Structure formats: structure tokens, C-alpha cells
């Protein structure tokens, strides 16, 4: 009897939380998908309405602008964060004396919520009260930094604020990756007479490639879910020029009280996520297979 319990208990401990989580993920996604095919407004209704919600959502200018923005923002945010993070990690790896201090400074933005990030950066970007005003008051009166009110440039202010938030995380991961590179490789490179540039380019960069993928994935999920930051920084404006897909979902679902359309927008967002994640999935598969054949 005790043997039975000993066999059964682990199964319970393993499966109970996993099943709840699976039910949560699958259930919520399925429910949202179902709703996207209904005419739901304020409360869920469950009759079939076909693709009506999708058509309505795709027709609005908000959706077009949101996805175009997501492309620019996604590439800018993820790209810049990773590049700057990597460079900072490489520099810190040079046995810098102030490492603890620098690391603490770089990491603290992660502790700050996106709402506060957006709010404080909106103060800084404000032309009449922020950086532009400050520089002007120092004497350089022709200085302009009014991106946040310029519909063509406002998106870049969001990228700056997001990069500010995420660089510490990227740096930490890259630094961890650099440090886990076999020290023998360092010595071998030295013996071969390879300079620092070549070392980092040829050996370290490929060495941290797996970690880079992890950084990429985490930053991407942040990018796709970006909501609080935009709301606090620009409110989606000027006009609707900095709206992003997560804001479109919120707008339809809650501001306009159209659950059907909001769910359709959410499903579209998830689909765009899959488009990005599928390559990652294939990459890990390919890498596993490669290791198996090489190993």
C-alpha cells in the first residue's frame, strides 16, 4: 500500500500543477478564439458570427498603423537592446574595476514598472518641460528634441524608453554567456596572437549565440505585449500614430466594449507571435539534431 502511495504521490505532484497550467493556457486561448467568431459586445455571447469581427478589425486604420509600428518598434527595440547589451557586456568583461557599481546601475531599470518608465520618460521627452527646455536654458537655444510630438518620430521615443528598460537584462545575460565560455579558448586565442576584436567576433559571439536566442525570445515577448509603456508615454499619440497591437486589443475589448472584435485582435496578435516563434522552434530542433549527430 505504501509502495502504491509512493508511486502515486509523485505523479500527483508532477501532473496537478502542469495540468492546471495547460488548462489555463489552452482554455483561455480557445475561449478567446471562440469569442473572436461571435458578435459579443459588452459580455460574451456564444452565437456564431463568422469572420465579421476579423473583417471589422482589419479594416480599421488602427490595426494597420499598429502592426506597421510593431515591425519598426520590434526590430528597433530588440535589435538595439541586444547590440548595446552585448557591447556593454564585452566592455565589462575587460576586468573593469567598477563592475559591481555598473552592474547595479544597469540592472535597476528592470525593477521599475513600465507605467513608471513611460511616465518619467514622457516628462523627459516633453519639449516644453523636459530635455529640450533644459538644453535651451543652458544657452543652446536652437536645440530641438521634440520627437514625442512629431507623429513620424514619436515611435522612436518609445523605443528609447524600452531600450533603457531592457539593456541591463541583455547585458546580464550576455555577460553570463561570456563568462561561461571555456577559459581555455581565451588562452588559445592569446597563443594564436588573435587580438581582442577577433576574439570577440570569431569565438565569443558564436559562443553566446544560444544565450542570445534566449534574450531574443524574452525581449520579443515584451515587445509584442507592450501596452503600459505606450499608454503612459504617448497614450498612443500624437493622434493614433504610436498605437501598437496590444493597445488595439484593449481599445476594442474594453474602451469600445466590443469583445468579439477585441478577441479577433488578440487572436491576430497571437498569430503574429507564432510567426516569430516558429523559427525559434525549428532552430532548437535543428540544434538538437546537430548535437546528436555531432556528439
Amino acid at each position, binding site marked *: 500500500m505504501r509502495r502504491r502511495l509512493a508511486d502515486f504521490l509523485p505523479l500527483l505532484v508532477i501532473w496537478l500543477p502542469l495540468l492546471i497550467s495547460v488548462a489555463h493556457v489552452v482554455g483561455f486561448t480557445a475561449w478567446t478564439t471562440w469569442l473572436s467568431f461571435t458578435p459579443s*459586445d*459588452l*459580455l460574451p455571447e456564444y452565437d456564431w458570427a463568422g469572420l465579421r469581427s476579423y473583417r*471589422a478589425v482589419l*479594416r*480599421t*486604420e*488602427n490595426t494597420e498603423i499598429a502592426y506597421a509600428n510593431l515591425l519598426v518598434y520590434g526590430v528597433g527595440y530588440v535589435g538595439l537592446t541586444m547590440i548595446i547589451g552585448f557591447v556593454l557586456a564585452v566592455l565589462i568583461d575587460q576586468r573593469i574595476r567598477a563592475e559591481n557599481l555598473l552592474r547595479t546601475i544597469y540592472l535597476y531599470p528592470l525593477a521599475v514598472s513600465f507605467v513608471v518608465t513611460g511616465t518619467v520618460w514622457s516628462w523627459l521627452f*516633453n*519639449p*516644453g*518641460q523636459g530635455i529640450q527646455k533644459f538644453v535651451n536654458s543652458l544657452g543652446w537655444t536652437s536645440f530641438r528634441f*521634440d520627437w*514625442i*510630438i512629431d*507623429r513620424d518620430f*514619436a515611435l522612436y521615443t518609445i523605443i528609447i524608453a524600452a531600450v533603457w528598460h531592457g539593456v541591463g537584462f541583455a547585458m546580464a545575460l550576455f555577460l553570463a554567456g561570456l563568462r561561461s565560455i571555456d577559459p581555455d579558448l581565451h588562452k588559445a586565442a592569446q597563443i594564436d596572437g588573435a587580438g581582442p576584436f577577433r576574439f570577440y567576433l570569431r569565438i565569443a559571439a558564436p559562443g553566446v549565440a544560444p544565450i542570445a536566442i534566449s534574450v531574443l525570445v524574452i525581449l520579443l515577448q515584451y515587445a509584442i505585449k507592450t501596452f503600459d509603456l505606450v499608454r503612459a508615454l*504617448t*497614450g498612443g*499619440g*500624437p*493622434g*493614433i*500614430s504610436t498605437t501598437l497591437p496590444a493597445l488595439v486589443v*484593449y*481599445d476594442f475589448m*474594453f*474602451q*469600445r*466594449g*466590443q469583445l468579439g472584435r477585441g478577441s479577433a485582435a488578440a487572436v491576430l496578435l497571437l498569430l503574429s507571435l507564432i510567426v516569430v516563434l516558429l523559427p525559434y522552434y525549428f532552430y532548437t530542433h535543428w540544434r538538437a539534431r546537430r548535437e546528436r549527430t555531432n556528439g
Partner: protein
Amino acid sequence: MRIRRRDLLAGAAAAATLPLAARAQVKPRVTFISQWSSGSDGAAITGLGKRLEAEGGIWQHSPVPGFTTEMMNKLRADIIAGNPPAASQLKGPEIAAWCKIAPTVNLDPLVEAAGYEKLIPTELVGLHKPQGHWIALPMQVYRTTTLFMSRPAMAKVGATKAPKTWAEFNELATAMKAAGIIPVANGGIRWDDGMKLEIALAGINAESYRGALMKLDSKALKSADMLEAFAQLRRFANWMDPNIAAQHYSVNLPKFLKGEMGMLMMGGWAQGVIKNLGGKLEDVLITSAPQNEGKPCFVLNADSMIFWKRKEPDLTAGQQLLAKLMMQKDVQEQYSQTTGSIPVRIDVDLSGAAWSDGQREAAQVLNESFKSKRVLLSLAHNMAQPNQISSAMIDVLTEYVHNDKVTPEQGVQRLAAAVDTARG
């Protein structure tokens, strides 16, 4: 399942005492949800609560931080959970939309007893009786078509009175711009931008406003008046401070009070904000926005409370008490004096010292407009249309204000298209 005699007796005894116990225990109680957590709105709703308590009730208010959307999320979550508040904030066409998803209380007996219906503007009545009987009550009224003028700015250009038509307004604005004053103080938040159009259109032709923005008649939406309104909106945009975007209009007030900005088109509530900032109302001239037709017209924004059906006797009693209080003159006076709005009842006397000139002027215009049937509902403040339509329309308007490459013709087209998509 056998029912024993003991149980029957116990049951009968309990039933016999129940009415007595219930009657002895019922203290009217109200659970309330709103977004009014601070400022003068918060003070006013707290004042209402204190009044309820003074009359023997229990007041349980849960303000939701954020804006109206957050409040509606909370309301929806509570409704889904089967636990709606006894009453909640809700306004305009949303009352009609939301009453379909949860049962409400029929207030007709109370309203008739107070003879209330004839005391409030007709446009408001319809909004609160979407299914033919009263389920909600208005709390206060604001006018959105108010023009505030900075006296120092006026002095600088030698203007002595407020412009009465858009032509006069445009002249004055040009003069101000030439004198180095920013003519239009605008914040750049969505509803602010949206308001500018409704003020322009209402000032051009009230009936066009009614047809286009309230009835969504496609001919009215594409009419010459609408084109003119968009042209005027473009003029406003060109006269705004280019350094302001997506900010609350109050950031402009310091400059406005000093005379560096000339004119503010805002709802009557701006009075309270000016006072809070330490501004002196003598420095400001408050009047109606320009009216090309020369006749008074009032674009209305009102806050209301809706009553959700509850079974509990203490909540039902609380609802009755709250409704009765909300319809009373003294309660409305207290509320409006706190927030700077106008009472809903048109029979309130505003000549006392507790009221400002701005409130008096607005109330007078309301009365006159009521009589000449020129009371309109605000689009930007979600009175004229339900949120799904007004959101789409305001998207177009705020884009238009911030994107000077959109011509008035294109603006008109986009607005009509947005209405179609939102409706379809």
C-alpha cells in the same frame, strides 16, 4: 425525504419572525463604484455619501483608479461575478448598452412621485429611460461649449469683448498670433481634440450637429457645414502650441493666466481647475463659444448613476434613499457647488454667492436652449454615441488635429468611413 414535524414547526417559527427581524435590521446601504477617486469629483461624491449617512444609510464607495475604461472593467467583472454594486457611475448611451447585460431597478414610482421628469432637459430624459422606464439618474450637467478668454491677452491686442461668431474668433486669433500670443490653448488628449470639432460644428449650425454627430445621418456627416467645421478645426490646430502633445489641458493654464495664451475652449469644469491653480477668475472672461446662428445652444455633458437590481433588502432600501436624495434640490446644489457644474434640475436658483458667474451664465444658456430645443449631446464626452462609435470618431479627429497633411475634405471622408466601420 421525510419532512419531520419538528422541522415544520421550526420553519414556521422562523418564517413568522422573519418580517420582524428583517424590518428591524434593514438599514439602507449603498455599494457604489465610480472613477471619482480624487479632486472635486471625489469630494462631491463623498459629500453625497455623507448626506446618505446623515439620513441613516450606510455608504460604501469603491473608487476605481484610472479612467472610465478601468471603472467599466471593474463593473463588468463584478457583474460577471454576479455581484454588481447597488449603484454605479455610468453615462449617456452606455446606460442603454449596459442595461441589457444585467437587470436594473425601475425608478418610475420615485421619479413620478417627485415630478422629476419635467424638471430636466428632454435630451437627458431619453438617455435614462432606454427601455421606457427610469433606471438611472443624472447627477450634474456641464457645458462643453464654453469659451475662456485670458484678459491679459485680450488687453495686449486691444480686444474688449468675446467673439460672437467664428469669423470674429478667427480675426481675434490672427491678431493674437501676430502679437506673439498663442491663440488656442489645447492639451492634445483625445477628448480635448474631439471637443474642438464639436464646438466648431455646434457653433456653425446646431441642427447639422444633431444630424451628423447625434443621429449619424450620412447626408449630415458629409454636408457643407461639416466641411466648414473641419476647416475651422484645422485653423484651431494651426493656432495651438506646437510643443504640446497628449497632455492634459491644465498644463497650459499658467501661460493662459499670464496672457501668453489667448483662448481656451473647454467645459465648464475648467473654472475649478483655474481656481485650484491659484488663478483669479477676474483674469478670465467666461462665456459661450461663438455661435454663427446668433441663438444660444448648449452642448451637454452629464454624469449619471445607474441602479443595478439586488435582492438584499438593505441594498434595495439604500437605492430608494439614494435615488430620492439625488433628485432633491439641496443635494444637487451641494453637488454642483463642489464640482463647478450646473445642477440637473432647471428650477434651481443660482443667484446666491455660492455660485460663480460662469455657472450662472451656463445655467441661463441651458434654460434658453431648453426652451428653444437647442440642447445637444457632447460627442467627445461619450454622450451622443456609445463608446464603440465615439472612440472610432475621436480617433479620426485626434489624428486630424495632429496631422496637418490631412485636408478638411479628407477629414470629412474619414469620419464618415469610421462611422460606417464602427457601426458595421
